[in-house]
């Protein structure tokens, strides 16, 4: 089965600079849905660029379906779709139709096939009626769907999604995941989601954690939440997981100090940081819904 593999990959931006990634090894198989966690600056974005062949390892190997990315084979761009956090970074067409056609055209897809694929993909993403619409007139959620369409039209084996829903409103976030799950089921896509939103955590089957450029966890999603070091890795336990599994004890919003809210449902003052009016001692309240 096709897979995307990292074999002891190290990466530095220059010979004199410290490595961003050190000895990272993992395998993403088709059909898998994996979350990649880690603090800002832990090397997650560098890893995504290496996976898509946009960067090449300093040492070690990255292979996509057996093709070494150092071969710079255009087949890698077809097989690995990379979706950035900011969709505007990868939208190049003036209209929706032009943008969807850009990738296939550049990889030499048959014009007949392309004419069929563009409306098909647009329709699946709910963009069918916007084919002639200038992309600047689309909302943020629609532009994110268009960027996903620009990736899916290449019929990839793997999707690398870098915080794909962080700039979407909650309605668009829900729509985006519905489409993604349908596409995954149909095409057996292997998907790596970087920094998944807390609310998306329960969709994952496997989780990986980068910490200081090293892969410190690669295993089941359930095992991640039980790992004693998740606090050190900067990972917040989602409320959905806390509810489902009972791991983690009390929420920080309900730390017993009365902070975060009043009995009548209004906001409380406990947990305010030092220096603010009415701030009693106590930890700051955290997130509520995961």
């Amino acid at each position, binding site marked *: 089965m096709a897979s995307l593999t990292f074999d002891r990959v190290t990466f530095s931006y220059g010979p004199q600079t410290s490595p961003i990634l050190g000895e990272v090894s993992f395998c993403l198989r088709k059909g898998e849905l994996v979350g990649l966690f880690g*603090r*800002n*600056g832990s090397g997650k974005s560098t890893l995504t660029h290496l996976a898509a062949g946009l960067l090449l390892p300093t040492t070690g190997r990255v292979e996509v379906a057996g093709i070494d990315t150092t071969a710079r084979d255009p087949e890698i761009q077809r097989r690995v779709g990379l979706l950035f956090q900011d969709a505007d970074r990868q939208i190049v067409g003036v209209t929706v139709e032009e943008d969807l056609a850009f990738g296939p055209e550049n990889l030499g897809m048959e014009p007949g096939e392309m004419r069929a694929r563009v409306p098909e993909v647009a329709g699946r993403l709910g963009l069918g009626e916007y084919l002639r619409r200038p992309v600047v007139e689309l*909302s*943020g*959620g629609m532009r994110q769907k268009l960027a996903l369409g620009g990736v899916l039209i290449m019929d990839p084996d793997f999707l690398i999604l870098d915080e794909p829903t*962080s*700039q*979407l*409103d*909650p*309605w*668009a*976030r*829900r729509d985006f995941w519905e489409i993604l799950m349908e596409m995954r089921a149909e095409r057996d896509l292997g998907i790596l989601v970087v*920094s998944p939103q807390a*609310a998306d955590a*329960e969709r994952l089957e496997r989780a990986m954690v980068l910490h200081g450029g090293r892969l410190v966890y690669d295993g089941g999603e359930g095992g991640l939440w039980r790992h004693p070091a998740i606090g050190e890795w*900067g*990972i*917040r336990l989602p*409320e*959905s997981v*806390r*509810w*489902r599994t*009972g791991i*983690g004890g*009390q*929420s920080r*919003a*309900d730390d017993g100090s009365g902070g*975060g*809210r009043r009995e*009548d*449902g*209004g*906001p*409380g*003052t406990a*947990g*305010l*940081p*030092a*220096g*603010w*009016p*009415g*701030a009693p001692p106590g930890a*700051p*309240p*955290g*997130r*509520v*819904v*995961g």
Partner: protein
Amino acid sequence: MNLQLEGLVAGREGRAVVGPLTGAFPGPGLHLVVGRAGSGKTTLLMTLAGFLPALSGGARVGQEAWSAEGKVCLAFQNPETLFFLPTVGEEVTYALRARGQPSGEAEAAGGEWLSRWGLPAQTFWGRNPLTLSGGEKRRAALAACTVFRPPLVLLDEPLAGLDAEGQDSLLAVLAGLAAEALVIVVTHDVEAFLPHARGLLVVGGGAGEWFGDGRLFLAAALARPDLFPLPDWFRAAVAGLGRPPEEPPPWPTADALRSAATHRN
């Protein structure tokens, strides 16, 4: 201050985007403005900040028409991209010097303000702001925007792009700020702010919907999924409690739900 909107219609280039809105943002306290992309949330903030004229209606504080001049901080997404001075100290005192405050006073006030944002002056004053972590940069930028202590603080997606730690630190500081100022936050991260919120406005066509309490908002969103897409797990957990519809829903924490389930049994 209590900011009262009276039939306010906000828009751009003469075209209405949101409103007419009639309701109150009582202060001090933190209020959320929620809605789909394109529903006019940012346009509303810009109108309240005086950057855009109201198309009709208006706002008042007490009996006086609201005038934003000198009384508002409006921070758009990623305010740290506007850093332009070499040190955190210079950034945080810039607004005070621009208002003619003597250097010594500006530095004292700036240092005290930085500390309240979790950035002690002895550690951060001389640092280049571009070398701070993501969460520190965001707090330094917002400290610089608010150092002149405006009574109204308007924030557009303040948590965007921060990791969990950065978000938690900023949430704690904003809760503190809301104890002494009126803070209105446009956000898609409703859940993160909900425990701190004194009120919530859902925009998206016409008058919008105002909620004076987080639980009223939760109850409405549970009853009407089109109002706001609550997470599936919370919806399922509340349904599992078999709660009578007139009872306020438990807060969306696993512990609150467990506690509600325990009391029921």
